[in-house]
């Protein structure tokens, strides 16, 4: 075989592609499911923490800051390994899927809380005061006046961070989740050919290039003119 033929045989092998396409497609489905669950839970928990922090209860705020710092400092893979291999020792056994979901959710919660909070503090104090003086309660002022402005500031960095953390779903392969990378690695060992890895990489591109492009667009669309 010539160089090009052997390259094509290894990385773009049509026969291997045909037989493992369903497996990779299933992996793609699992990655999308995992990613959606992480995004929904992570962003919601982050917002909840940021709102709690608005209450200004000092011990609570110190606790929130510590939790956020903790999950910003720890590598996601370390959190995942700790949950998956550590929890069984405490008598709690979790599936690879649940452990991956939980660790990425905690990381996204921490990063998004920080971004929401930066957005909330960027809203001028006068907005709070004006809203309260019209007779709105604290939570009404937060929900109807402050948060809409804060979210607008938060959306571009939030999008980029969410994309970066969602790609961490590939870490699931380390704890036996058959998401794209896990499925591709199994298919590679069954077929003794790395074509499934190429398919996996393509699946990620199909999934994430539109999201990355969307992130770029959002960045310009929502940018405040400085």
């Amino acid at each position, binding site marked *: 075989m010539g160089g090009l033929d052997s390259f094509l045989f290894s990385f773009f092998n049509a026969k291997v592609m045909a037989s493992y396409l369903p497996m990779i497609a299933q992996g793609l489905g699992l990655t999308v499911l995992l990613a959606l669950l992480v995004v929904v839970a992570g962003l919601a928990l982050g917002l909840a923490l940021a709102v709690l922090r608005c209450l200004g209860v000092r011990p609570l705020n110190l606790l929130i800051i510590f939790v956020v710092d903790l999950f910003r400092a720890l*590598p996601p*893979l*370390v959190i995942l390994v700790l949950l998956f291999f550590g929890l069984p020792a405490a008598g709690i056994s979790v599936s690879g899927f649940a452990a991956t979901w939980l660790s990425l959710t905690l990381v996204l919660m921490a990063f998004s809380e920080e971004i929401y909070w930066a957005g909330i503090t960027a809203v001028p104090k006068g907005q709070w005061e004006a809203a309260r003086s019209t007779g709105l309660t604290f939570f009404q002022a937060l929900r109807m006046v402050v948060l809409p402005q804060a979210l607008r500031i938060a959306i571009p960095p939030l999008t980029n961070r969410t994309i970066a953390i969602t790609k961490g779903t590939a870490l699931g392969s380390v704890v036996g989740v058959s998401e794209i990378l896990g499925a591709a690695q199994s298919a590679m060992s069954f077929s003794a050919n790395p074509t499934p890895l190429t398919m996996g990489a393509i699946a990620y591109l199909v999934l994430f290039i539109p999201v990355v492009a969307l992130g770029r667009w959002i960045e310009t669309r929502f940018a405040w003119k400085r």
Partner: protein
Amino acid sequence: MDEFLFAFLNGEILREAWPILWQGFLYTLALSAITVPLGLLGGLILGLLSTSGPRAVRWAAAAWTDLFRAIPPLVLLVFLYAGLPFAGIDVGAWGAVAIGFFLNTGAYYGEVLRAGLGSVPRGQMEAARSTGLSHGQALAYVVLPQAVRNVLPDLVSNTLEVVKLTSIASVVALPELLFQARQAQNATYNATPIVAAAVAYFVLLWPVVRVISRLENKR
């Protein structure tokens, strides 16, 4: 409670595992000392190409950046480590980590530096050139320092991500902190080494997280 302490904070096991955890910690530091400059180098090349090259080059640099921002770093690493040998190219674990980080973190640093370079007014370059500096000198002494200062919080935050990312090198069996902790856990059937590794990462990186928070709140 005793059971919990035995399983997660076991002093005896920590003493036993300490030497290899320490080795892993030093390995992680060494790995970071190599991957951060590699990523910065890749990012600088991409940043310069995407701001000052001809239109086609700028477009290619943007496409390259998006490509390597869309592929998860672990996928890239597995591809380099386990896929390339089928084509007769065996770069080894170190080679795979070096190339993977150059490509992946280079793309992220490239995005940051592109924004930084774009934030420096064109007049700065023109004024520097008019004083007789060459293009390279003007970049190095006038434009880059301002660009870096403008995006310093993002640069530090990205560097934190790179150091955290070195933990994926455990997947290709480089004996960094997480890998050593897993080995110790397997040998002792006890989660203490992993808890210790997590504490070590936290102690190492918490100050960086604090610095980033301060830098971000200042702007």
